[in-house]
């Protein structure tokens, strides 16, 4: 129990490092000529990276056979959602100026409705919200493993939309967003080719372990 808790604490601490680095840069006035853009882009980058990390848990677990990884999947997912929320809040409050400038809500609404890259980015945020909401043990029990798993597959379209958000944002032919998109495609494809499927006995064994059963049902795949 102690070791598992330490693992989660370590994970959360690691996830906070980019945020602390950003705060440190802000304190030193080192965010460049357009600090708002720097903060917006940095949180966006980390939202996408942590989403990819959440998607990587299951393939990595299959690849390594380290079933204990599953225990950290929910934490990684919640870290990703935290960065997504932060990115969205910075867009609304700091970039667009809402609610300081009440009329800015019109520009935000127009952005979401009319700018394809904003539309898909916002859609990803919307799709991820119920996943964060239902991440508690109570919700897993209430929904049941199968339905909970089905719901949480929403991370697939959400990750695809998030990488599209980045692809549609850049000007000219740039490779960085393409690498992220290929990462998402690769991690989703890894779920189609089950190179090392879980045998029924292994599945049973892992499901019968109390910690796995209580924190997360068998993987959605």
């Amino acid at each position, binding site marked *: 129990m102690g070791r598992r808790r330490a693992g989660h604490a370590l994970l959360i601490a690691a996830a906070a490092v980019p945020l602390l680095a950003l705060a440190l840069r802000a304190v030193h006035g080192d965010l460049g*000529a357009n600090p708002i853009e720097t903060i917006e882009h940095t949180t966006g980058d980390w939202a996408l990276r942590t989403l990819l990390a959440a998607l990587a848990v299951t393939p990595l677990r299959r690849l390594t056979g380290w079933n204990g990884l599953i225990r950290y999947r929910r934490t990684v997912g919640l870290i990703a959602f935290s960065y997504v929320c932060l990115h969205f809040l910075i867009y609304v409050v700091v970039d667009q100026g809402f609610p300081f400038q009440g009329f800015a809500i019109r520009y935000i609404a127009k952005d979401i409705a009319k*700018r394809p890259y904003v539309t898909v980015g916002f859609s990803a945020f919307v799709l991820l919200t119920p996943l964060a909401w239902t991440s508690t043990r109570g919700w897993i029990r209430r929904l049941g493993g199968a339905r909970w798993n089905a719901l949480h597959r929403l991370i697939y379209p959400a990750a695809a939309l998030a990488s599209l958000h980045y692809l549609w944002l850049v000007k*000219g*032919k740039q490779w960085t967003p393409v690498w992220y998109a290929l990462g998402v495609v690769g991690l989703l494809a890894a779920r189609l080719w089950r190179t090392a499927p879980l045998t029924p006995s292994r599945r049973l064994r892992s499901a019968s372990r109390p910690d796995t059963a209580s924190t997360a049902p068998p993987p959605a795949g």
Partner: protein
Amino acid sequence: MLIRRPPDIRSSDITSESAYWNRRRFLAAGAGIVAAAALPRPARAAAREDDKPTPYDVITTYNNFYEFGTDKSDPSQNAGTLRTRPWAVSVEGEVLKPKVFDIDDLLKRYPVEERIYRHRCVEAWSIVVPWDGFPLAKLLADVQPTSHAAFVAFTTLYAPDQMPGQRSDVLSWPYVEGLRLDEAMHPLTLLSTGLYGKPMPNQDGAPIRLTVPWKYGFKSIKSIVKIRLVREQPPTTWNIAASDEYGFYANVNPNVDHPRWSQARERRLGEFFRRPTLMFNGYGDQVASMYAGMDLRRNF
């Protein structure tokens, strides 16, 4: 051709960098006293709406110059490899007196004027730059355009050994831009050779660049080696990359949104809130007549 100074540039607008910074220091010193007496709301609003020159370090570290990388901070880090001497600018095409100018001859030939212009990027950020340069019209008058000349095509240096961004295919190289002849002859259109009284920094388009303040920044082509007068509308780099996003005219227009973002507001670097974008970037009185009767939604 009568070349007049546009009415919005008064000699009182021209500020030397030292005077500018002295004023900053003076204001900073007085800030404590002033802060006590809270300004009435209209005065505060007015203070935010005016156009103070953007600090030199912002103008020189936040650049879109894809020849040196796609990040805003890339050009200031990578442009040191650009060799700006010797530098020749060829003025050619539909002219009676084509000529290859050495950059230093150009600088001697045309007296440099200081002009403080608003600069609005298509990405919805803006700065105010105290440029040093001379009207393009003066140069064009000297080479005598023929009656066939209808457009002016500009070309940036192509030198992948000096411009690392040209080794990638982010855009088609060399960078090319164009203006209609009347736009090129307009007294606001500048060939800029410096800013804040200093020679043009490499990352801002040394040694000579175009400045067209009522158009989005991408029209103001940097590090020019060729100016060619032509009969037909010339191809332009961003239009080649995405014709539905970047038109030939690219006049600043808050009513015509870029397909991917709104153009109604802009972030003036250094300010927290976005400010409304002005039609023709606020130069409508001087330039709107050139576009009378044109559908600016179609000719974006």
